[in-house]
């Protein structure tokens, strides 16, 4: 008689483990009953990203203009098809309100008259691609200084005229010096594909957080969701 190398019980245990493992990977399973646990982990990751890793004083690296990705290769997404466009660009303005002392209505001319920031940075899409482009606009922090948010204003909500697309931001990331209300891409006014007339831009967040086709910027005390965030994408989207 030779020794049994492993017992029937061991084999059963191995089988159960392997079974659970293969179940987990099979057929593009989303998580079923584990989805709430996954959400909890996502909240923890958002907290770590916002409170531990993020610093308003850490700037994203800039690149020479010669490193720009060819414009035809820089993807531009929107929800609406065809591309959302406003009927009367002259009538467009950004409404800034919510938990602020001085709500404002900012036209494109007003924004363009403010001190501008231009940088050439890397864009990171949640899909995994990256591309380099130059963006010009007004720091969100400058607008924040003008409207004077109250202490209750912990978050910002950005609304658009692109279907029901919207985004929620933490105040710290919004106040980052590289977070801007951009009106130009690669030295020319934004095209509709890139969110004309005005979009949010920042190298410290993933592309889906960089709201295009802006209409409203609202300071809130409650955490706003977001078009993709409500469907399961990370809320912070911080880089």
């Amino acid at each position: 008689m030779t020794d049994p190398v492993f017992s029937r019980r061991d084999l059963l245990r191995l089988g159960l483990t392997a079974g659970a493992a293969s179940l987990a990977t099979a057929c593009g399973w989303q998580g079923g009953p584990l989805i709430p646990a996954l959400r909890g982990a996502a909240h923890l990751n958002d907290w770590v990203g916002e409170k531990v890793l993020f610093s308003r004083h850490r700037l994203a690296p800039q690149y020479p203009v010669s490193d720009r990705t060819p414009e035809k290769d820089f993807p531009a997404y929107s929800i609406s098809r065809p591309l959302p466009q406003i009927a009367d660009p002259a009538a467009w303005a950004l409404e800034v309100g919510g938990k602020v002392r001085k709500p404002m209505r900012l036209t494109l001319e007003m924004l363009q008259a403010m001190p501008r920031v231009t940088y050439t940075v890397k864009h990171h899409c949640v899909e995994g691609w990256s591309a380099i482009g130059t963006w010009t606009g007004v720091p969100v922090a400058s607008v924040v200084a003008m409207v004077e948010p109250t202490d209750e204003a912990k978050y910002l909500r950005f609304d658009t005229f692109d279907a029901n697309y919207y985004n929620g931001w933490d105040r710290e990331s919004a106040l980052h010096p590289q977070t801007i209300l951009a009106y130009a891409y690669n030295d020319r006014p934004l095209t509709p594909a890139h969110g004309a007339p005005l979009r949010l831009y920042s190298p410290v967040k993933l592309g889906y957080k960089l709201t295009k086709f802006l209409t409203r910027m609202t300071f809130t005390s409650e955490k706003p969701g977001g078009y993709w965030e409500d469907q399961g994408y990370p809320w912070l989207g911080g880089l």
Partner: protein
Amino acid sequence: MTAEPAAEQEPIPPEPIAPKPATPPRRPLVKRHHWIVRVTHWANALLLLGMIGSGLQIYHAFTHFGLRGGPYFPNPWDGKYFPDWARLGGWLAGGLSWHFALAWPFVITGLAYLIYLAVSGEWRLLLFRPSDVPRAIQMQLYYLRLRREHPPQGKHNALQKAAYTFIFLLGVISALSGFAVYKPVQLHWLTALFGGYELARYWHFWAVWIFVAFTVVHVALVFLVDPASLRAMITGWYRGRFPSHD
């Protein structure tokens, strides 16, 4: 179960010189793996499976490496998708949720194992050192059947030490390159260490295939060379032909 028998320094397999007795003596049952090693081993196996499945789901969203517009880095899977059964999460958001949720347990498991090795002193039986090189060559010669008798060994042979040291380092590289891809601005120094965002993502992807190759060879060797080691990794107890200490 009785206490661990003292010094069961068994001679390595070779056929007995004396004619076989009618009933060969049973090898003693010895404790081979601490529960922390066993728990972290199997937890790691499951976590790695989940990390790879969700990682392949994430890959699905952009099947190239390099800046948009290319040129893209060499990749046999460039532009290709992995089958449904290999992916976890169902869609990009699901894949990301799984990947980011399992990342912390993966790191914690690795740290727990590392701390156990440090505190118990067991790292001495596992760490591959320069002095192991000649022993590893002898072991390889044996596997290639260029050497007749099995080289003497302790708990692990020199090739095992090389493999187990390397695979732990690969885990460290996977975790670090993962953080480099996750926070390329806040952890810019780390991303730069991997050669930038696109390359960090590239190395992160290659680590997968090294893990897969390691696992295939690892499991094959368990059954071909030392099937008793499977029981040892499950229950902790071993009745095999190799010593369980150095």
